[in-house]
């Protein structure tokens, strides 16, 4: 009985790690896209103000994309 309980708890702990990893991964994918944009702009000699504006524009586009979503029929 206790062996089964221990195994179940261990599986739950592993699933929590999996979830946390996926959450961090999702954030990482978005972060990577934004970092890439910032790095490209910096390499192109853009000022920090321009880089900030570029990041704001990129994130603004993501939020604007949510406005294009249609409600269910």
């Amino acid at each position: 009985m206790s062996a089964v309980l221990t195994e179940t708890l261990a599986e739950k702990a592993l699933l929590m790690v999996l979830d946390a990893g996926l959450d961090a991964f999702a954030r990482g994918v978005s972060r990577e896209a934004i970092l890439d944009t910032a790095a490209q702009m910096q390499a192109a000699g853009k000022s920090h103000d321009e880089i900030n504006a570029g990041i704001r524009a990129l994130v603004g586009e993501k939020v604007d994309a949510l406005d294009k979503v249609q409600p269910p029929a």
Partner: protein
Amino acid sequence: MRKILVAAALLVAGCGTFTPVGSIPVDPTLPPAAQAVQTTINESFVLVGASADVLLENYNAGVVTWDEFVVQRGDLRTYLRDLDKAQGLLDACVKQLREPAKAGAPRAPPCDFTDPARQADLTKRLATGLHRKIAERRRELK
């Protein structure tokens, strides 16, 4: 089953650990307090961007209702507006520090970046909370 879970957890946790931890470049000529505020604003933009991406996935996958989607979309838009406000406060503060006072003009109290810092910190806290909520629903995809 357990071995598969261990392998998957290690793989995904590793992906989470080894995702880029660099930050968006911040103007090094800014005072340290201003750099800290700008970093908070930049990190919050990343959170809002990630939340928008995952929210869209959640809705398309059917794990959030239309009403939930509308509420969370509204929250993201509010946080974006709040971050713009924080950026505006920061820029005004930096401008005040960098521009010499005009002769004869009344001198404004020196800006210590408290207001932009407070605005940025609050928005980051709220955006983090929303991101967690959205990410929790994403887990229902599995």
